[in-house]
Each structure stands twice: as C-alpha cells, then as structure tokens.
C-alpha cells in the first residue's frame, strides 16, 4: 500500500470517528471560550504583577544604596541587589515579549514551535539564573532589610555570621545541583518538585536543546 492509497483509508476513518462531536455542542464550546478569556486575563494580570514587583524591588534597592553610598559594605550589597533586580526586570520583560510572539498560536507551525522552544529554554535558564543565587542573596536581603527598617548594622555586629552564611550558600548552590542530578531519575509525585528538579539537574535544558535541534533539522531538510 502506498501513501496515496492511505488517503482513502484516512477519509473513511475520519468519517467514522464521531467521538468528539461534543465539541460542537453549544454549552461546552461556550465554556471553552469563556475559559480562554479567563486564562488570558489571569496570564496578563500575573505577568503584569510580577513585572511591577520586580520594578518596585529594584527601585527600593536603588534608593537604599544611594542613601547608604558612603558605607562601602552597604553600597556593595545595595548594588548587588540592584543588579539582581535589573536582571529580574529584564527576564520578566523578555518572557512577556516571547509570550506575546506565541500567544495567538497562528504563526506557521515551524515558526511557532521554534518560538515555543525558545521560550521554554529561556524560562529554564532564567529560573536557574535568578533562583540559584538566592542561596546567597537571602543573606544580603536580610541585612539590607534590617538596615532599612531598623537602622541596625548587622554586618558590623556579626561579620563572621555574614561570611559563614555566604560560604554556606555557595556550598548549597553546588549541593542542590548535585542532589537534583541524583534524584532526577526518580519521578516526583508533585509536578512542582518535578519541574524544579528537572531545571536544576539540567534535564529541562537538554530537553529544550533537543527540541531546538529537531526543529532545525525539520526546517533544514
């Protein structure tokens, strides 16, 4: 049998498959449409709130180091948090931009699937780049917050604790990646943990790279 002969088999099969006629029943279709609108609203609202939070956080970090610019350790901590905030704004804005390129799903299949793969790869990289540093940043954020809210200088009061916490954070960065790679092969029950482990272990990044390669091959043949 040739592929052309299969056209006849396909036409017959298509006629016999009426299992999803429910699709066209008005109430179900309307529910689907309504859900689409609600999802759109929540996606846009969520992305807007996230971007706003990054901007506010960055502005607070900037005002902190400007105010404390005469003390070296506060200036450095404030600048680091400011840089982190700018990275967060950039990541959030890029994510939004990539989302708007795919949102309507009406681009040619190869183009849209490539954009989707780019978005997935960007999310994996940005989640790692913004998430892992928190093993260190929480120390800076705590010290800066205490200074901003109470005026206390925890760094001068306990410099040893500050450096030990940073050293612990640096070890924890490596340990969390190592642990994720160890447990990556075991399926997790909660999708949330599965995603975190796949991100940390590099599985999601490899998956995204494979997908980009497959799309490139399909387009280049």
């Amino acid at each position, binding site marked *: *049998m*040739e*592929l052309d*002969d*299969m*056209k*006849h*088999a*396909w036409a*017959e*099969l*298509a006629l*016999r*498959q*009426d*299992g*999803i*006629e*429910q*699709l*066209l029943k008005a*109430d*179900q*279709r*309307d*529910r*689907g*449409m*309504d*859900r*689409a*609108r609600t999802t*759109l609203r929540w996606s846009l609202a969520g992305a807007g709130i996230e971007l706003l939070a990054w901007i506010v956080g960055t502005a607070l970090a900037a005002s902190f180091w400007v105010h404390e610019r005469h003390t070296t350790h506060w200036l450095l901590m404030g600048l680091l948090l400011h840089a982190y905030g700018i990275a967060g704004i950039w990541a959030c804005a890029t994510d939004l931009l990539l989302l708007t390129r795919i*949102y*309507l*799903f*009406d*681009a*040619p*299949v*190869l*183009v*849209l*699937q490539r954009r*989707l793969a780019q978005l997935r790869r960007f999310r994996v990289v940005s989640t790692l780049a913004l998430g892992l540093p928190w093993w260190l940043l929480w120390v800076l954020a705590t010290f800066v917050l205490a200074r901003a809210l109470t005026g206390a200088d925890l760094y001068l009061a306990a410099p040893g604790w500050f450096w030990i916490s940073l050293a612990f954070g640096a070890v924890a960065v490596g340990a969390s990646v190592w642990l994720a790679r160890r447990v990556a092969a075991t399926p997790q029950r909660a999708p949330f943990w599965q995603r975190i482990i796949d991100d940390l272990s590099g599985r999601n990044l490899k*998956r995204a790279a494979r*997908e980009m390669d*497959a*799309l490139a091959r*399909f*387009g280049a*043949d």
Partner: protein
Amino acid sequence: MDILLTTEADRPRQQAFVELLDAHRGIVRKIAMLYAGNRDEREDLAQEIAAQLWRSFARFDPVRAKFSTWMYRVALNVAISHARRRAETGHTDPLEDWHLDSVADGTANDEPDPRLLELRRFIGQLDALNRALVLLYLEDRSYAEIAEVLGLSTTNVATKLNRIKHTLRKQLTQSEPTGA
C-alpha cells in the same frame, strides 16, 4: 444559557466564529484524533483547540489566509504542544485506541480494516511535525498550502513527502513475506 461573557459588540464576531467552526469541524476532529490517545483526551484536546481558535480569531484576516489554512495552523500548533506535554509525562503511543473507539461507537466492523491498521501503525511512528505533514497530505491539501501551514518551502514539502513515501514503501516491502 449563554455563559459567554460577551458584549453586544462581540456578538456578530462570535456568531461568525461559530459558523466557521461548524463548517470546518472535521479539521479539529481529525487533528484531535491524531494527537490524543483516547476519547476523553480527544475531547479535551478538541476543546483546547476550539478555545485557542476563539482567542486567535480576533486577528484572523481573510485577505491574508484562507480560514482552513489559519485553522490548521492554530489547531496543529495546539496539538503539537499537547503531544510534547504528553511525551514529557511518558506517554508514547497516542494512537492506541483508534479501532477500539470505533467499535465502541458502534460504527466499526468487527474486523479492523487492514488499511486502517497499517495507517495507524505508520502514523504512530512519526514525530509530531512529520505527523502534521502527513495529515495535511492525507487531507489532500496542495503542496503550497502545506508549505503555508507548516512554514516550509514548497520544495521542502515535496522532498519530505517523497522521503516519507519512500520509507513507507521500503517498510512494506520488508514486511511482505518473501516468495508470496
């Protein structure tokens, strides 16, 4: 009861959309059949496609593309994304129960059509992108339209289809008993 949160201004657009969807319902049905595993999943995928079509409909421009071309693009993009999510959760054979569902519908013969089995086996081997290509071919779409839907050149479409035909022919030759 109309549970759509539509304004008066939306109604003509909604009506136009529903009429076009009704006229081209076969496209959604066939794509859902190719990319989902069982009846429940097919219904979910079909709903997802219909919802995405509605979301995208505001930007549909009949001057730039035929409705069917636009619909194939949106529906295939949704279905391929669905297939990718499915593969990530360890499901690998989305076509496992074509025949069983046909029997359950009371629309199939007791004996499965060998051509259908062959078609199912063949499509089941293809990845999501090549499956889209073969679907459009089986739907008798022109090479130009296939190229427009997939974002390939017409030459590329022809090359790929020839390669697929060649592979199929080779497989069938190998599976035939020698001396028969």
